[in-house]
């Protein structure tokens, strides 16, 4: 009987440990899935300091905190692939750094690694006000979906140099 109880306890502990691990994995997948479809919008906030763009990133997520975490990644993605339209305070529209619309699929290996959790993209972004969100920037767009706006500064000069050095985009002086 004692032997049986011991076996049952071991099995229960194993099941508990496994469920903890799979829960964490599921949360991580959910977080990534929530924002990994590159569903976001960029608004120009103002002319940033030299070498930077100051943008507001609107990300969608079922849980607001996931969107906040991923706003930085979306901001870098937007500066590379989407660009943004003119905004308030004399903010000018900017073209994306990538001039080839198929670049993301052509250099898939590079960008998968670049945008992974804690990837290199983190070097080029800073959240303004420590990522604090204004009251009007937390919108509930449906029963289970939030649209969150976070102001992010993207160091576009360093980002461009990084992509040029990696051979992903061409520099202005390439070929001369």
């Amino acid at each position, binding site marked *: 009987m004692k032997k049986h109880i011991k076996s049952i306890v071991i099995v229960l502990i194993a099941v508990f440990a496994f469920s903890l691990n799979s829960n964490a994995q599921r949360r991580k997948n959910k977080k990534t899935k929530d924002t990994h479809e590159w569903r976001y919008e960029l608004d120009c906030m103002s002319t940033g300091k*030299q070498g930077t763009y100051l943008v507001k990133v609107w990300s969608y997520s079922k849980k607001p905190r996931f969107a906040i975490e991923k706003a930085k990644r979306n901001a870098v993605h937007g500066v590379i692939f989407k660009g943004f339209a003119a905004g308030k305070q*004399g903010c*000018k529209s900017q073209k994306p750094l990538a001039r080839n619309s198929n670049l993301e699929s052509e250099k898939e290996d590079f960008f998968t690694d670049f945008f992974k959790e804690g990837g290199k993209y983190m070097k080029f972004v800073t959240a303004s006000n420590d990522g604090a969100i204004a009251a009007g920037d937390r919108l509930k767009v449906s029963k289970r979906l939030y649209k969150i706006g976070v102001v992010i500064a993207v160091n576009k000069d360093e980002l461009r140099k990084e992509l040029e050095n990696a051979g992903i985009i061409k520099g*202005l002086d390439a*070929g*001369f």
Partner: protein
Amino acid sequence: MRKIFITLLFIALTNSVFAQAKKPTLMVVPSDVLCNQNGWMKTFNNQGTIVKVPDYKRAFQESTYLLLVISKINQLMADRGFPLKNMESAIKTLESNAAENAMRSSKETGASVNESPIDQLKAIAKADIILQLTLTLNKTGPKKSITFNLQGLDSYTDKQVASASGTGAPSFSAEIPVLLEEAVLSHMDNFSSSLQTHFDDMFANGREVIVRIQKWDDWDEDLETEYGGEELGTIIEDWLADNTVKGRFSTTDMTEDMALFEQVRIPLFNEKGRAIDARRFVKKLSKVLKKTHQIPNKLVMKGLGRATIILGGK
């Protein structure tokens, strides 16, 4: 034999792989309207007509704002691997060169440096692409804003190859230098982007140049003279069709005395993989005319993008 072949192949490959196109020079120049609005003009009487021309030296001596904007543009372009020629320095260098040439004489014969009127005419601050700058300070009551216009103009084809323009947000409190800096920062990425589009087009379709054919007035033949049953003008057109990238050029003018070819797309490299410009390209035509048709000629160039052949002698 095999070793020699491999060595030659290696040299040819390295030549073509590492070949670099001739890099155009860029320079920021204040526009005529900016100079006129600020009184940086010289006036002179040209046979009864009063002519106004920009006085760039005075502009650089009087305006700190102009220096600030040019310095910012130069800095941002240098960051992109494209340092610009500084017009103020170019003007000073020309002045000092002229003074040195005037004073210089040969130690042995006492001869002075020879400079033709054409050489004197060409001694101006120039670049392959001129970045023409126009700034306007707008005031509405206490509000101030800056309208910024930067045009990249090809010196040879006269085409606008890049641009960025717009008006910044009006401000009650910001000082003019701050507004100017903001204008430059917010426009230079778009300007660089349009310049890059121009360079991409150049690498894909060749450099666009102008080719002009003229004749000395003492030459007895002209462009309508037949050589081997074909008019000289047509022979030149056929040569251009065979040697331009995808046969692209436009015959803008063709008379018995002159021909003007525009939008001539020349390859960036010759068959040896060396970078070429309009002069090196037209040199081949000059040789063909001389060797095949026994027409002596003189080749004259202007920067990377303009070359003229004058038929009938050197």
